[in-house]
């Protein structure tokens, strides 16, 4: 369930005017921006942008970009800018932007790519691919192919190109035999073998869940436990992420949140990404999981670990008033 509380009736005209006011004069009234946008769902945000453009003859997003990123004096100036920018975009567009940013980063972490291809339904992934065309004049898969190599490339291209069957039908015999194939590959440390990539990137989610269950029955432990944890091998780490996302997305996101907050410093990128992309989906359940796991509500942890307008934004999206 979503955590964002958006009133059913809103006056998008008033919202547009409020946002305009927040951007005028000295500085930017981030609180006002968050107060409006943090309480609007995707459809409403779209309408606000449309009306804003009609009235003021400019793109609201571009205006916010220039207003917010100028605040270098404020230590988390660009962090709030990124968060607002991500939030205001249409979900498929947002994911396309996140994917592109991740591809351009020369690291070897593929969180976004795995998340969009393994925790979204087929239509959502399709919408992201379309948005990517429109924004970057390339297909998502060709960019992934260009920026990665080896087994990682084979896995990621297959995952983002998938158009899985949406039905709930399960073939138990197939699940059993594919669970065996997965186990054999893992046992022989042939993590990149064809069967692994094929099964993970072509089967429907329902069929995969059945396969993972059969795996557990056959081997006595879950498949994720048998994949090396915290591996420095790019492919194995990516593979493990994909399996975890396909198996239990909420559990996966809880862990990303937990990891982003615990220890010294906060990984704002990860924190923002999870909260912004799940706030309208299943952040409520993820919060509950977090509370159960860490004995402290997520809101409290965010309150403690972040500050300023960034904190305000996150807490608003988490459902606080």
């Amino acid at each position: 369930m979503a955590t964002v509380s958006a009133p059913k009736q809103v006056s998008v005209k008033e919202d547009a005017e409020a946002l305009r006011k927040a951007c005028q004069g000295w500085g930017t009234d981030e609180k006002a921006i968050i107060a409006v946008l943090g309480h609007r769902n995707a459809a409403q945000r779209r309408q606000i942008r449309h009306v804003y453009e009609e009235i003021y003859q400019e793109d609201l997003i571009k205006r916010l970009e220039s207003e917010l990123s100028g605040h270098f004096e404020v230590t988390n100036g660009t962090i709030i800018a990124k968060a607002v920018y991500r939030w205001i975009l249409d979900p498929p567009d947002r994911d396309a932007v996140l994917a592109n940013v991740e591809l351009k980063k020369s690291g070897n972490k593929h969180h976004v790519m795995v998340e969009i291809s393994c925790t979204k339904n087929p239509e959502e992934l399709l919408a992201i691919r379309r948005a990517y065309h429109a924004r970057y004049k390339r297909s998502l898969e060709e960019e992934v192919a260009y920026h990665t190599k080896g087994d990682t490339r084979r896995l990621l291209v297959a995952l983002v190109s998938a158009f899985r069957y949406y039905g709930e039908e399960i073939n138990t015999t197939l699940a059993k035999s594919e669970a065996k194939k997965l186990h054999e590959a893992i046992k022989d440390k042939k993590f990149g073998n064809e069967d692994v990539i094929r099964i993970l990137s072509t089967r429907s989610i329902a069929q995969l869940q059945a396969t993972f269950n059969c795996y557990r029955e056959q081997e006595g432990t879950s498949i994720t436990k048998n994949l090396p944890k915290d591996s420095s091998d790019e492919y194995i780490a990516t593979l493990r992420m994909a399996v975890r996302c396909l198996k239990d997305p909420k559990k996966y996101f809880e862990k990303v949140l937990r990891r982003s907050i615990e220890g010294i410093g906060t990984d704002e990128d990860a924190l923002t990404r999870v909260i912004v992309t799940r706030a309208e989906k299943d952040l409520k359940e993820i919060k509950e999981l977090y509370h159960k796991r860490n004995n402290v509500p997520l809101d409290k942890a965010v309150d403690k670990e972040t500050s300023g307008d960034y904190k305000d934004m996150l807490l608003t999206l988490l459902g606080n008033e």
Partner: protein
Amino acid sequence: IGVDEKSLISILTNSNEEHKRSLRKGSSKLFIEDENGFERWDQSSIKILKHQFNRFRDAVVLSLLHPWERDARLIEKAIRKGPKHYNVIVETACTRSSDQLLGARKAYHSLFHHSIEEHLTHIKGRERKLLVALVSAYRYEGTGVNEDVAKSEAQILYEAINNGDKNKLLDHEDAIMILATRSKQHLQALYRHYNQSYDKTLAQDLEGEGILKDTVECLCTPQTYFTRVLEAAVKEDADEESKRALTRVIVTQKEQLVKEGFVPNKIQDILLGLNKDFMLASIASGDIK
């Protein structure tokens, strides 16, 4: 030999026994004198007639279906029938627009309760990787090609073909990625660069490489591919498969064929009977999607 249904029906319903016997005696191609004193139908003629009717039926059904269902069924049949038919998968995946291919994938879900990718796992051969990649593509369709990248990728393909093991081409990851993910515009630019840099075309270099050549042609020079298929179908000794290809190509490529003036002249000669009339009529009617 052909089937002119209207005339046939008119003749038969209006004939008496005497008339029919003289018809049989007069058609020495269709009827043979049997030693038991009657004119029997020649076995091979029956076969031809059957094929004619089948092709007509196929043409009608193929024309009537929604293009998405049509393409999904073409692919499913090709997977079932085996390696000699994989070119149909390539043809369908590579000559439709991105959204048409997507539609076919959706239709496949509805019709067969699996994704095309899943069913392709039934293929044990080395073509599988390429085929899965081709049907999974959702290519960008805008203009704007990075010529430098196109040129360097032309080189990658050149080296894969000429310096590497030609037998291993279907396993060449980079080659497959390029062919399966790049936009058609990009690949056409690549094709041009290849020609300029190496004095031969990519298709020529892939002569004999079956679906790899088909892939390149379908993506870069579809008219060449379709011309090849059509010409094979109108040859004297064309087999049944080739003739079926004729139906498929004409129905699915109506628009393009009319543009290029390939029909009706060439086709008229071999399409006979009702099938011909149907084909020509549907092309002439400009039944454009």
